[in-house]
């Protein structure tokens, strides 16, 4: 579908611990694909001028929702929006996840990485596809009741580093513990260290489709500024844009070595 810029009214809000779920009326965004994001203008207080990208957490005919974690000035403003407030959105933007017919999938989320994978799981369910959703978090109570809400709809397995929810360990440990047969597709979204160890471990697990959603700071969101790039695995090096070529990439498109270097440097 054609991306657009439009105003959307906040029609619902729920608190889930660290994250706030915002539901907005957005008929224009119908047709958003899991993995795509909306680029949201965050008022303009304290000199904030740029938009902030947020994955679509869920979409219905006339609404979409986001999951916003408060990590700075923009997200703090966004999480403080109330029902009736107006947001200025651009989207849906970027390349979403590819889903094959009849495929059985594992979806691995770390932290707020749950957002695009939650939407993906919903779309798979609609298409009658089998999907296992694995979600790792730091503290087991970080997301309030959200794990229970999601578990009501999907086959959800949880882990937390403090062991308070699900198994003690990371989302990658969840994947290792997952004994579901016949899964050929793996999808992941989460912090970079998690994605790095996931790719290390999953590369030889025989998935025929392995896609990751990668976050990078963004300016334009449409591929014009080359600000949001991800190192690409072609022999000549170079970069792909997270906003237009991504945010979803095939695992093999990404130069994980350079990503690892930039984290450990």
């Amino acid at each position, binding site marked *: 579908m054609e991306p657009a810029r439009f105003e959307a009214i906040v029609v619902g809000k729920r608190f889930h611990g660290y994250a706030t779920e915002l539901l907005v009326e957005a008929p224009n965004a119908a047709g958003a694909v899991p993995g795509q994001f909306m680029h949201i203008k965050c008022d303009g207080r304290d000199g904030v*001028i740029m938009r902030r990208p947020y994955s679509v957490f869920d979409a219905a005919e006339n609404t979409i929702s986001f999951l916003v974690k408060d990590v700075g000035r923009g997200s703090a403003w966004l999480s403080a929006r109330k029902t009736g407030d107006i947001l200025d959105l651009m989207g849906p933007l970027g390349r979403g996840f590819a889903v094959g017919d009849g495929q059985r999938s594992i979806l691995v989320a770390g932290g707020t990485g749950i957002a695009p994978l939650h939407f993906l799981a919903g779309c798979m369910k609609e298409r009658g596809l089998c999907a296992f959703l694995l979600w790792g978090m730091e503290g087991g109570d970080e997301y309030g009741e959200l794990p229970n809400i999601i578990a009501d709809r999907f086959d959800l397995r949880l882990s937390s580093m403090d062991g308070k929810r699900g198994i003690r360990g990371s989302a990658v440990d969840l994947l290792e513990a997952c004994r579901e047969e016949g899964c050929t597709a793996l999808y992941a979204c989460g912090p970079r260290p998690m994605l790095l160890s996931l790719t290390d471990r999953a590369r030889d697990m025989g998935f025929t489709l392995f896609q990751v959603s990668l976050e990078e700071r963004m300016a334009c*969101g449409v591929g014009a*500024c080359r600000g949001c790039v991800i190192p690409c695995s072609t022999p000549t090096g170079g970069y792909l844009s997270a906003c237009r070529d991504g945010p979803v990439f095939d695992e093999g498109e990404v130069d994980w070595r350079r990503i690892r270097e930039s984290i450990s440097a």
Partner: protein
Amino acid sequence: MAEDKGIDIGVELTGIRLKNPVMVCSGTYGVGREYSDWMDPRELGALMTKAVTLKPCAGNPTPRLWEVPCGLLNSIGLENRGLKRFLEDDLPWLHEMGLPVWVNVAGFSREEYVKVASEVSRSSLAAALELNISCPNVEKGGMYFSNNPRDAAMLVSSVREMVDIPLYVKLSPRSSDIKEMAIMMQEAGADGLSMVNTFPAMALDIETARPRLANVTGGLSGPALHPIAVMAVWEVAGAVDLPIIGMGGIWSWRDAVEMMMAGAVAVAVGTLNFVEPGAPLGIIDGMRGFMRRKGIEKAEQLVGMARRMEVPRPGGEYEGKDNAGG
């Protein structure tokens, strides 16, 4: 919107007629295609492309962006697919659109600049060149030309000799005396100036004591830069006899009018495109509305309007007046 009877928003600079004075800045509009879903590029007065270098260039490591108060830091570097791809794919597409194109030229040596500029000129697909001399020089470190006006002048005359289309030089706001730089560019053969480029700046993450940008430093753009850019245009407009394309934090039609009143013949919208795709259209409309309200018939009347006014200077000081910021 319907054309206004009696209001001529077009401008002409170095023989190029623009249907309105609103362009888009180099590096903020890709090669035009990226925003074509969002607005018809043909509505623009003109378009300035992302920097083109001789060979493909990967640009800087990531992260490349950081937001600062009313501004954006970027360290994209000169990422582009190189001259060959540009001439084959991008420039013909832009030419097809029929809007005047300024090609932003960069290089890592004088030879590279000359080669890129002359091939673009030879292609006959560009309206003008914009020489990005506030770009790095791998041998001698970033911002080299801004610190070395004489070498910049030599570069400009080398390029000037080899090209048939108007040559604009893009100036850095980090200049002890931007008037002097502008005068030297004029003497070296520049046909016009575009100003300003981003301002070298940086931010640190105090939690890690590391720079926010992988490249350590970056360029500041956006509203924070605007009053610095207006002053640069004002100063240079009084010092040279070249058309100036004004840019730097233009965030509304008011900022655009201000820039023209300071002396710019046209303006270019940069960082704002990222926030509001299609913003140039609103600026064009706003400018037209302002002209109508003020009874200004030609956009060209706006150019340098504030420079032509008597400036209020009440007397009566008992000590010499001074020009300090305090």
